[in-house]
């Protein structure tokens, strides 16, 4: 069938099952938007392309489907560089379709020209620069395939505007021609057997699961392995929810602001089984002193992750779901004696008892930030999707909000992008309209993509925003307090806006809460009020996130 290349783009999107795209039109992608006009695909008009990119990420993280963002050439495309890198770091399946100037203007500093392929090259899983309109359907199909398979990630398709208007024959593409791309998903059977034996022989094992388990939809298989014996389990910031918390075998999160129990257990473990986790520096602390007694099983779909930071004794390249299912079966067949772990659990229980997560609650009406998370848990019943921004509030949410299921917790873990929270929550809600979506944010982070309140209002995407307002760029302030002699350099509130008024101005509902005693009720009211609601919660100004592994210190030297 003959059609304009841009109409073929729409056919491709529909063939990939895309039901919503996020974006903003501009000169170079007007043809795309012309085709979108009656394509029957929902378009969410964001107020800044960065919001569109993060919304696509939030959509992808919440649904597991590929998130799509459209941006025009030049500034439109450069505005999505941060979301692209963010999606790269957290392995988020996303496709970014950018407009480009006419082919005869390429490389001439044409109006709104930027070398998008060049700028994004180190930040993408792959990218396509369309050079002939006939390439468009295949490039799009392969972009989606690349984005969602193997280790997921962002793919950019850059389409010069003249090519997008060409008249081309369109046939649905069902195959891919990517000879250099063959992710290993099965996992070597011999290695898996070795891993099962190592687990059976271990006396102080820890299972350590990351975002890869969520991406692989391997939560059930993880639970099966963990409960096939009395294995202690910890999940990284990206993996929270992959194993339901709270649970008898759950140690909490590891790393810089993880629980002492999880960190001490890793420190004393004789075997660490990493699944879809990458031994990030925020998890290991000082690498040379990380888990000094442990042998490592490392399961990952990306071979470049294995032995990157920690040398793996039993490497297994494969999809977490496949590998975990086989590993659990192999392990059960060995009928290991569970009693060998008793001593280990005694030690773990002692840590749990001695070092629970704790804070000193206020005796006045003052709202402690940790209490704010507990109040949110109470008000929502703990069932909502919770999107987070970056900073102290993110860490407190990760600590004090037990996630019951994968894809319930949406945050920017690798890149740590302030401004991620609101648009990601918006994208999650667009993908999961039947679920309550809350966004926990900070007074600093929130201002970085605050314009998306307008999008939420116009598109009637209900997001419940809770600002943990301490008047500081709190995490930086904490570091300045602890490591830089309390020299607070440019982290204090100058004249922060009145967030409730700002929300009203954007057509949302604004609320403000300063009293601990009414906080849960206020939050409930926000949840029950139709539309997007912003609740500005005044919390203790100088509260630190504890416990903490100081930067560069070993995990066993946790403070606070």
């Amino acid at each position, binding site marked *: 069938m003959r059609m304009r290349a841009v109409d073929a783009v729409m056919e491709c999107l529909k063939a990939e099952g895309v039901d919503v795209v996020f974006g903003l039109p501009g000169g170079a992608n007007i043809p795309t938007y012309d085709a979108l006009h009656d394509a029957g695909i929902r378009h969410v008009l964001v107020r800044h392309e960065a919001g569109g990119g993060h919304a696509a990420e939030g959509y992808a993280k919440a649904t597991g489907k590929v998130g799509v963002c459209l941006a025009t050439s030049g500034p439109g495309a450069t505005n999505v560089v941060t979301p692209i890198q963010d999606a790269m770091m957290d392995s988020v399946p996303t496709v970014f379709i950018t407009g480009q100037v006419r082919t005869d203007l390429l490389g001439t500093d044409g109006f709104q020209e930027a070398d998008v*392929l*060049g700028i994004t*090259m*180190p930040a993408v*899983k*792959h*990218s396509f*620069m369309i*050079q002939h309109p006939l390439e468009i359907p295949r490039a799009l199909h392969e972009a989606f395939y*690349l984005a969602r398979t193997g280790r997921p990630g962002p793919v950019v398709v850059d389409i010069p505007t003249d090519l997008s208007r060409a008249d081309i024959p369109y046939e649905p593409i069902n195959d891919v021609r*990517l*000879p*250099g*791309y063959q992710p290993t998903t099965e996992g070597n059977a011999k290695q898996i057997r070795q891993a099962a034996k190592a687990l059976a022989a271990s006396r102080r094992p820890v299972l350590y699961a990351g975002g890869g388990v969520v991406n692989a939809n391997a939560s059930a298989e993880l639970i099966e392995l963990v409960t096939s014996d009395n294995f202690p389990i910890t999940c990284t910031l990206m993996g929270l929810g992959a194993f339901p918390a709270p649970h008898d075998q759950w140690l909490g999160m590891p790393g810089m602001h993880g629980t002492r129990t999880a960190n001490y257990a890793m420190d004393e473990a004789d075997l660490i089984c990493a699944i879809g986790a990458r031994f990030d*520096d925020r998890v290991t602390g000082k690498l040379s002193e990380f888990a000094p007694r442990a042998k490592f099983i490392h399961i990952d779909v*990306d*071979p*470049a992750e294995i032995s*990157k930071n920690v040398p793996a004794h039993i490497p297994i390249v494969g999809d977490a779901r496949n590998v975990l299912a086989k590993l659990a079966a192999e392990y059960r067949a060995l009928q290991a004696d569970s009693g060998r772990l008793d001593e280990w659990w005694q030690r773990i229980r002692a840590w749990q008892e001695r070092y629970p997560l704790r804070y000193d609650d206020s005796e006045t009406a003052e709202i402690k930030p940790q209490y704010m998370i507990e109040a949110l848990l109470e008000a929502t019943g703990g069932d909502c999707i919770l999107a987070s921004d970056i900073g102290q509030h993110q860490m407190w949410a990760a600590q004090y909000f037990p996630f019951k299921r994968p894809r319930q917790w949406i945050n920017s873990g690798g890149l740590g992008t302030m401004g991620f929270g609101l648009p990601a929550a918006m994208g999650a809600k667009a993908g999961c309209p039947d679920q309550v979506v809350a966004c926990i944010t900070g007074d600093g982070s929130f201002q970085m993509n605050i314009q998306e309140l307008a999008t939420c209002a116009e598109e009637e995407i209900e997001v419940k925003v809770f600002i943990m307002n301490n008047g500081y760029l709190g995490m930086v302030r904490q*570091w300045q307090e602890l*490591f*830089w*002699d309390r020299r607070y350099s440019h982290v204090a509130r100058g004249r922060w806006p009145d967030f409730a008024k700002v929300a009203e101005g954007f057509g949302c509902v604004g609320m403000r809460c300063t009293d601990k005693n009414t906080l849960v009720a206020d939050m409930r009211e926000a949840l029950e009020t139709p539309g997007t609601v912003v609740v500005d919660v005044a919390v203790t100004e100088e509260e630190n996130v504890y416990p903490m592994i*100081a*930067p*560069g*210190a070993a995990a066993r030297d946790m403070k606070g």
Partner: protein
Amino acid sequence: MGEPGTKQDVLSLEELEAAGGMRTGRKHVLSILVENKPGVLTRIAGLFARRGFNIDTLTVGPTDDDQLSRITLTVDGALHPIDQVTKQLHKLVNVLKIRDLEPADTVARELALFKVAADGSQRAEVMQICEIFRAKVVDVARRSIIVEVTGTTDKVEAFERMVRPFGLVEMMRTGEIAISRGRGET
């Protein structure tokens, strides 16, 4: 000692060195089979640049399949830990195959062109050296000659040492190409 970002930690140069990872201590010849598409070289070079690695030589050329190109690049494993970067190269969608060639199992050659000052009196002597190296004189002018040398890097460098005293006007080298010994494909 901590990481950059905390006050007490002015990192010493030795500590920065130690943080670098494993070095093999030898020259590596990476033979990379890639799809013949625009941007592939940039993607590959970018992975080295990102780590601050220097590529010593680089050649790109067609293969017997016009869809594919062969990139041969050499890096110094004494200076850079290349294991991780090799894994990253594998991940590039346009890269089909990578081999880290062992010098003993490899035939490697490069081509060099030398412009040597060779006035009447010196010309005979330069020509004699050329003969020993089985180098070919490809251009003769009144005050200089151009010589083509093919061989291993060692041979090219030896030739350079020999002709330099006569006045080396300039030198161009292609960088190595390499092919594995035996029946199997590189």
